[in-house]
């Protein structure tokens, strides 16, 4: 289910300088019981965001009004653990359109790309630069240019890699499934002899 076309994104960012953030933190298992894709944003980072009584924890970044925006910047190995696509849905539903980290877990990366959420892998040093700069100035926007494959922090351009096919899908809001369905007859022929 592709949502909207992704071209350029200019936004402030939310900082989460923690490594190995697993998908159980992004959306705990007890909130996976819905049978639709919507509404998971309410429980994004649930146990870091709210205490046991459901009150917002003031020390968590999503409860800090200084940091808002459509870009999440997180420590390395973001999205490890469970394959739950609900993690990508929750981030998207909350309003994020891109996640920047120095390393992503594979399944999360695929899930994000399948949901118009752009995972951008940058160098450790560039990631640190973003953390440092935005801790000083939370209003500083980041510019993400998917067509030309770079992230810009002030004048500092960091290129990023993305699979050419996935890039085309994001820019045009295409789905893998549309492509696969166009090959259904060929796949049927293969299935018969295997």
């Amino acid at each position, binding site marked *: 289910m592709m949502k909207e076309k992704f071209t350029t994104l200019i936004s402030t960012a939310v900082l989460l300088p923690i490594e190995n953030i697993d998908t159980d933190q992004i959306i705990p298992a*007890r909130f996976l*019981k819905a049978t639709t894709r919507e509404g998971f944003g309410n429980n994004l980072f649930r146990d870091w965001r709210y205490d046991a009584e459901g009150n917002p924890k003031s020390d968590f970044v999503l409860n800090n009004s200084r940091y808002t925006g459509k870009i999440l910047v997180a*420590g390395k190995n973001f999205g490890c653990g469970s394959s739950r696509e609900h993690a990508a849905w929750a981030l998207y539903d909350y309003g994020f359109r891109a996640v920047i980290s120095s390393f992503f877990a594979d*399944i999360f990366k695929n*899930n994000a790309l399948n949901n118009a959420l752009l995972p951008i892998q940058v160098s450790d040093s560039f990631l640190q630069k973003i953390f440092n700069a935005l801790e000083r100035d939370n209003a500083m926007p980041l510019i993400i240019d998917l067509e030309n494959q770079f992230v810009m922090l002030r004048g500092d351009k960091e290129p990023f890699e993305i699979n050419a096919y996935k890039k085309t899908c994001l820019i045009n809001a295409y789905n893998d499934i549309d492509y*696969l369905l166009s090959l*259904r007859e060929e796949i049927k022929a293969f299935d018969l002899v295997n």
Partner: protein
Amino acid sequence: MLFIDRHFIHEVTSPQAFDGLRKRGIGVFNTKRTTATADHNVPTKDQHLPIKEALSRQQVETLRKNCAEFGIDLYDLGHPFQGIVHIIGPELGLTLPGMTVVCGDSHTSTHGAFGNIAFGIGTSEVEQVLATQCVLQYKPKTMRIEVNGPLDKGVTAKDIILYIISKASASGATGYFVEYAGTTIESLSMEARMTICNMSIEMGARGGLIAPDQTTFDYIKGRKFAPQGEAFDAAVAKWKTLQTDSDAVYDRVAKFDAADIAPMITYGTNPGMGIKITDRIPTTKELREISEHASFNKSLEYMGLEEGTALLGKAIDYVFIGSCTNARIEDLREVARLVQGKTKAPEVNVWVVPGSKQVEAQARKEGLDKIFEAVGFELRSPGCSACLGMNEDKVPAGKYCISTSNRNFEGRQGPQARTFLASPLSAAAAAITGRVTDVRELI
């Protein structure tokens, strides 16, 4: 583009995929290649009664409705084949060497123990497989992990994989598929091999596999959906060719000596944070990178532990023996052998959750249920249970649980629950003493 030979589905990651098919007005591409079961949020008590929790009940009912509408075989609650999806696939002979296997669950790597390309997928990909029997994938890099030599007593497959992950870190194999090899791996039973492949994802590898051999063929022979008679012999001849070429080149190779492996335990909040059960928790000074400090300290704070201290003797509150990592019959036999004639520590709650109805039936047939009962362990009904706490089986906030499952993430076993991952033997030893214990002292 990969054609998928075997697709498993469960109640949590499939409903949105079926909705997608409905919206497009298309059916399932080949219903014979998909098998469903209810496991993630099912209760492990009174499974014959309607599920009490409304949302869980709705998810299981949605699975029922979808399987009926689209014509997919479902091993529902109460069916003699129901169980954790990664346990029933192999035990029914649905998982066979040389297949491509996917499921909307990261522990699909388990099926790699049969020499398969098996990996977890997201729900969008579940929809793609239902609609076209194919997924689009990047070609992964290859890694060979060799373990050689005999294992010490009390050291099991779980300790091997926790040891490997502690060396590799929670992201050390991201982007790779891992082949496990070496004399130690070859000497393991199929169930032990599944434990190893199961946790590949905990170091970031989507898939982990082991070349099929006589152990594999003997395990498969006679299983419900496996080829029978002459067809089986023909299949074995084909499966025998599924060995890595002797001159194969890997992107990375790592070798370990089985003699260096001891019973393992994790102290932190990712599975890479593991130590020998007799070791101390590392100090921040001993960490590889300064960037790890914040996460390490956060982790220890969550766990209520101090750097540089020992875990041996630490009092525990819960013991969970179960999950797709360690809930097969051999796991239950090992636990029963260790605890027979002993009594559990009075203050500890012990849940033994079999991986499937077949495992449960076999355990009862062998009288393991009686042994557990005498010790004070509770043998429950099959499901994922306290591995991820989607059902009622949650560890209370602040309590310590020694668990045979695969993840010690914050809140994994319940909000604020604290998890120590270990082998079934180490978990059973802790159930008896009420403390983190070196099982070698009880053998």
